[in-house]
């Protein structure tokens, strides 16, 4: 995926990126304004709310207190955050391993096959993710397809409880995020300069070495983009984790949602949200540093 930061100007010429004039600023303002109003301001408000209190019915009372943060640094919530990050990490790793070869294959295919495969990757998206997750429940449950197959083939004698386990949760997450890993890596692979690869072959390198030392590094921007697109949202995913995990392993996203609903404690939810924001900004910062490192 392309680097959204500083645009690298192509060959010299009178149309190098010029200093932005008033006209350019005028046209850029809508987007900047949008970002400001709907991304920055809400984030600031969230921080404000995290320092307030609430009444018995759950309405926000605008005062100043550290109580929510003191509570947030309790072991329970930190542990939940940790578990969520762990699940996200597992999901990202598995998506990377599963998705990279697919992205590579698609990127190196001829035009027609490539379009077809890309569409095939996208099509599952056009069904609701909830229904897709439910389909997995009917596959993995005690009377589901997987157990029926295993029993039928004689590989097991009693149904295995696949559902409502960490395995099911990670499977659900991987299933949901796989396309987000495949697509960015694919864009990187598509831009690979064939001559570099051929040069490596010509120099006598074996395929494995070419792959590890030439292709992988060249596709690094795509990998980093894919990792960011999967890891960060996965931390706070909740619907899938609840459905597949049976509610025994609450994730941070679920917990935050709970604060805004059944726990009637929006300020505390906001505090947890701010913690999550910190994790998220940190990941983003590391991610962009990785990509900048590649550019320079």
């Amino acid at each position, binding site marked *: 995926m392309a680097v959204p930061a500083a645009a690298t100007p192509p060959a010299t010429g009178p149309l190098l990126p010029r200093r932005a004039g008033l006209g350019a600023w005028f046209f850029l303002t809508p987007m900047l304004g949008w970002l400001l109003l709907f991304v920055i301001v809400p984030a600031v408000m969230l921080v404000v709310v995290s320092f307030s209190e*609430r009444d018995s019915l759950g309405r926000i009372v605008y005062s100043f207190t550290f109580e929510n943060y003191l509570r947030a640094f309790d072991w*329970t919530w930190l542990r939940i955050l940790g578990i969520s990050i762990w699940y996200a990490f597992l999901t990202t790793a598995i998506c990377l391993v599963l998705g990279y070869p697919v992205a590579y294959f698609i990127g190196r295919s001829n035009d027609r096959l490539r379009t077809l495969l890309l569409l095939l990757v996208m099509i599952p998206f056009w069904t609701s993710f909830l229904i897709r997750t439910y389909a997995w429940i009917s596959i993995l449950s005690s009377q589901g397809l997987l157990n029926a197959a295993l029993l039928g083939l004689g590989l097991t004698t009693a149904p295995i409880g696949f559902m409502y386990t960490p395995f099911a949760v990670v499977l659900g997450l991987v299933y949901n995020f796989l396309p987000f890993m495949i697509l960015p890596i694919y864009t990187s692979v598509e831009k690979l300069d064939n001559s570099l690869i051929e040069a490596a072959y010509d120099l006598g390198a074996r395929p494995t070495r070419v792959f590890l030392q030439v292709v992988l590094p060249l596709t690094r921007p795509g990998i980093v983009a894919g990792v960011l697109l999967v890891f960060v949202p996965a931390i706070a995913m909740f619907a899938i984790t609840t459905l597949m995990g049976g509610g025994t392993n*609450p994730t941070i996203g679920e917990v935050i949602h709970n604060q805004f609903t059944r726990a009637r404690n929006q300020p505390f939810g906001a505090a947890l949200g701010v913690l999550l924001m910190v994790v998220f900004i940190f990941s983003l910062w590391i991610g962009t540093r990785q990509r900048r490192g590649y550019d320079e």
Partner: protein
Amino acid sequence: MKKRTKHLMAAVCAGALLLAGCGKHDETLKIFCWSEYIPQEVIDRFTEETGIPVAVENFASNEEMLAKLLAGGGDYDLIQPSEYAVQALMRENLLHRLDDKRIPNLKNIAPEFRSMPFDPGNRFSIPWLAGFVGIVYNAETVTRPIVGFADVFSPEHAGRIIVVDDPREIVTWALTTAGIPINDVSDENLATITPLLQDWLAKVKIYDSDSPKTALATGDADLGVVWSGEAALLFDENPKFQWVMPAEGVHMFVDNLAIPKTARHKDKAEEFMNFILRPDISKMISDEFPYYNPNAEARRLLSEEQLNNPASYPPGFDVTTAELFGDIGEQASKVDELITTIKLQ
């Protein structure tokens, strides 16, 4: 890009924004209710007979409803709060007083439901359906006789239990077992029941408030503590699912319809209330949701089978003596935290 396509895009955009702007159909009755808790038939019938269009939005818990309502999100005409939410809303003066003259069908409600402690005389709410939280077990796989919570959470059932994912409910069962009044949710009492909860929840496999019957039907769980309506549905499917009212004590919940002060169509809302209090309409509701129907006239129209379902109408249960939830205010947060902490262990 062709000029025409660009103009088309602009038109679509403008059209969408316009639609967004006049998204308010000012004649529509807006109902805020539990997911799938009002049968579509009932809504369609209402629109057919009165010509009033209806828009429905769902929530998954009373707190979600309260949160959205209080945040000023949406001008709902009708909400579907449970008994303690009605109590909380009444206390904060957020409900419209009902006009008895516009709801003549109030007379159909069984007398015991006309004098509920949270709203005696039905001044602000009418009952929708009542129910209980009790024990359901699969008689084919559960060999131990089940009489109460202690039997459910015994060691041999570890990893085979499903419970509703409602912290307040779970805490209530522990309070009942410990002999503490269910609305006395103080920090000390919570501390008292913590060891019991830790022992219990370690054995739970699944938490599911939405469709606990699924796991029981697929055999992923053998027994559980669930809503009576869910158990009734299981019983209808297959009588191997037995229902037990816990010996330690059962509380009743009552879901209601009420009109928030921010409603725009109070009169239409009252018309809807009157509509669903009709015996034939109430029967339609009961047909779909086998909970305890508080409408005495409607109950006369139910079949033998429906009235004999032990989960819907527990034999020998005296509704007037049933304990109900009261609002616990800020303690809701502590309760949620307690259960979340225990779940992690």
